[in-house]
């Protein structure tokens, strides 16, 4: 674990309810540069909600969210306040998100899926964006798919394209929301391989996953969530040999 890396993401006392049901009860979490953090836990434990609040797809009800010490949301007089739009736009550039069901743009070619946001949002010259995209595609083993459309690709290829799309904006931290849950075991392998390569390059990543073995091999830290709180947190060895009954029971189900 790179203890010296600066803190990229800091979440303090994050709370979120939907229709009066508390999904996140009091989540505090900080992630340093170069760290790979996996979040595991049963369905409905709030893992995805945590990711969606951290990426600002959902607004949180309370607590603090900051990227590189810049506060995106904080509490003021007991209410959660978000930073002004312009500042949020800057903060947004820090992170990328890979979805469970890819959410590629079907009317754009693979190349355009990857280059459109850099060109339109970040005003990167088109040539440069395409250069960047080609490098990413080569790195992810998709060089021959630049002109294909998402519907012509397998699920694994689509997910790799969506990883390339997120990386093209050069985020400092990349979130994955169950990136392989929509894939069969074979395709899962090719996506996990790509994520492992990113880890080797010290990409900072937060991964919500049900792939226990993968989380164990790859993570610097594993977080076990249940009922909206972090029940246990530690290195893979600590979590896999945890004394906590619930953690043991949960992990045991995957190892049998």
């Amino acid at each position, binding site marked *: 674990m790179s203890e010296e890396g600066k803190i990229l993401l800091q979440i303090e006392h994050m709370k979120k309810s939907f229709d009066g049901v508390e999904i996140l009860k009091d989540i505090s979490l900080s992630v340093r540069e170069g760290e790979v953090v996996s979040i595991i836990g049963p369905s409905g434990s709030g893992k995805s909600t945590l990711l969606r609040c951290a*990426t600002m*797809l959902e607004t949180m009800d309370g607590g603090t969210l900051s990227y590189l010490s810049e506060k995106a949301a904080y509490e003021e007089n007991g209410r959660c306040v978000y930073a002004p739009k312009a500042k949020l*736009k800057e903060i*947004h*550039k820090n*992170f*990328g*998100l890979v*979805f469970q*069901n890819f*959410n*590629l*743009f*079907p*009317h754009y070619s693979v190349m355009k899926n990857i280059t*459109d*946001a850099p060109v*339109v*949002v*970040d005003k990167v010259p088109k040539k440069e964006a395409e250069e960047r995209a080609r490098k990413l595609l080569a790195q992810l083993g998709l060089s021959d798919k630049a002109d294909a*459309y*998402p*519907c012509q690709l397998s699920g694994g290829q689509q997910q790799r394209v*969506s990883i390339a*799309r*997120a990386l093209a*904006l050069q985020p400092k931290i990349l979130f994955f929301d169950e990136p392989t849950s929509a894939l069969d075991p074979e395709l899962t392998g090719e996506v996990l391989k790509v994520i492992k390569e990113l880890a080797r390059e010290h990409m900072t990543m937060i991964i919500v996953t049900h792939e226990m073995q993968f989380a164990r091999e790859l993570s610097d830290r594993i977080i076990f969530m249940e009922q909206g709180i972090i029940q246990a947190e530690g290195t893979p060895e600590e979590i896999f040999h945890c004394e906590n009954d619930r953690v043991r029971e949960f992990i045991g189900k995957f190892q049998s």
Partner: protein
Amino acid sequence: MTLSTILLQLMKGMGVTAEIFFLTLLFSLPLGLLVAFGRMSKNGIIRTVSKIYISVLRGTPLMLQLIVVYFAPFYVFHLKVGNYRFPAIIIAFALNYAAYFAEIYRAGIESMPVGQYEAARVLGYSRLQTFVRIILPQVIKRILPPVTNETITLVKDTSLAFVLAQAEMFTMAKQIAAKETSIMPLMIAGVFYYLFNLIVATVMERIEKSLNYYK
């Protein structure tokens, strides 16, 4: 009257019919999008007004709307507007078709998976960029079949302009038929409408095919 004069007269009427058709599309397609936005607005007043607009314009006869639009300036406001016939027709048609198009747009927009919006948002697109670059192109593909339907109906509906004695094809055909005591001009008009719609359907099919490169 010889057959060639009849044809010539009908062709002239056809020109006016085509004018009504294209001008109606030109105004009602964007207006429909605006109404669709109103219909989906977070603002309750805008939403209600749009809803009433759609309800009334779809719920009353187009022929009646034509007459109201044409005569309202005089009967309601006591205004004398010179040569208002053609503009009145275009206004009534555009208002009426916008209501139908609005519902088609709305259906298309609401059918878009939320994941497309979320992906665009995480990538940093603004709301306008998301709509123009990501949502609208996909919505157009989805709504093309119902839009084709409306467009074909519009070709035939242009004949309603006869209530304001506009010299479009149907009015011409009826006049000539009465004068010549022959059903022939009406039959020819029918063929012309059919051919017009054949072209419309073919063009729309081409556009649909050109968007078939993705699913």
